[in-house]
């Protein structure tokens, strides 16, 4: 699903970590550990095609990327946002699929309130609904646990577990450990570039 060959990301012409070679197969959850500034976010953004300064290579099938930013338009309500993200993928999202996704994250009553007026945790839940609606099998999640309350974390672990069982793959950077059994990769930060 995802193969990395001697991948080393660079920022401001400096290599951040030792070259990495990994493969992620369907039904696998990989947790990316590493101290702050070790390049976890940069690696995820490189795999998502946003960051373009790296050495080595990687192949990955169509993916879903969730960065630090919420990726919701604060002027629009959840329904409009999710419809738009569906259109971004070139799909039209049916109403009951929307209803199920929102129910799954317990955000159904908030379906029509503009996202700008929601709390950070609620917006995170709406992005989880977006993951459910996206047809992409490979998920890149950057610190998914941030701003989630206890109940939210339960929902998150439940979603990831069912995604893995359904044959998807998750490649996520996180400090707190996930309930799901995850293979750990640590990035060895390069103190002095060769």
């Amino acid at each position, binding site marked *: 699903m995802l193969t990395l060959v001697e991948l080393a990301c660079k920022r401001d012409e400096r290599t951040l970590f030792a070259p990495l070679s990994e493969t992620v197969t369907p039904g696998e959850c990989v947790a990316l550990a590493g101290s702050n500034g070790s390049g976890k976010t940069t690696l995820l953004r490189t795999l998502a*095609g*946003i960051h*373009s300064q790296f050495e080595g290579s990687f192949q990955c099938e169509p993916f879903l990327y969730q960065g630090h930013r919420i*990726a919701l*338009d604060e002027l629009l309500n959840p329904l409009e946002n999710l419809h738009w993200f569906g*259109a*971004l993928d070139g799909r039209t999202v049916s109403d009951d699929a929307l209803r199920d996704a929102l129910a799954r994250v317990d955000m159904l009553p908030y379906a029509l309130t503009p996202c700008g007026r929601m709390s950070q945790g609620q917006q995170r839940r709406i992005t989880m609904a977006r993951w459910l609606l996206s047809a992409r099998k490979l998920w890149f999640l950057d610190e998914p646990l941030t701003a989630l309350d206890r109940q939210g974390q339960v929902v998150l672990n439940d979603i990831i577990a069912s995604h893995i069982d359904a044959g998807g793959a998750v490649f996520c950077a996180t400090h707190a450990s996930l309930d799901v059994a995850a293979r750990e990769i640590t990035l060895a930060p390069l103190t002095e570039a060769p």
Partner: protein
Amino acid sequence: MGGLLRREWQVLARNRAQVINPLAFLFLAVMLFAVGGPLEDNTRAQYGGAVLWLIVLLTNMLSLDALFRRDYDNGVLEQVVCGADVPFLVILLRIGMQWLSTGALVTLLAPFLCLLLGLPGHVTATAMLALALGSPAISLLGAVGAALTVGFSRGGILLGLLVLPLLLPVLIFGTSAINQEVAGITNNAQLYWLGFISMVALTIGPFATTAGLRISLQMQ
């Protein structure tokens, strides 16, 4: 495609200030020029065309600065670049919407502006045609500057510095189209040139804007 367009309309409907403020500034600037400029009507007609185009250019710079800023901050732009099959289309739609809310609207309001600027009646048709042909180039090339400067907090100045030199031909041909109409000389050449420049901007604009956004996104 429909879904993408729907969101643009929704954002436009809920963020009307983004459309109204530049227009208000446009009329304000025209008034300032009219008050500041010479009073006799014959001289005012001579520089009316230049004033009109200058103000349209500068108002566009104001609205271009905020073109991608909101999506850049809330993370939607990331999803466009890495999620969409064709990010180019989404960005072309966004530029189109910006043109609608500035270029097209100014073209529709041109009769009032020509009136305020003391341009004779028969000039209005040419002014509208020139604005319609020239304003796409402003939005398309301006979007490239907006994409490159969205990462900086005070990007507005740099946006103008990067884009206005490239828009000099639009100012030259737009102004002389109106001036020659005032003098009664045919000005098809200028209109063709404005159309040509807009076509060039249409071919390189969206691609360069996408490349610019990819650069700015790496600055986050």
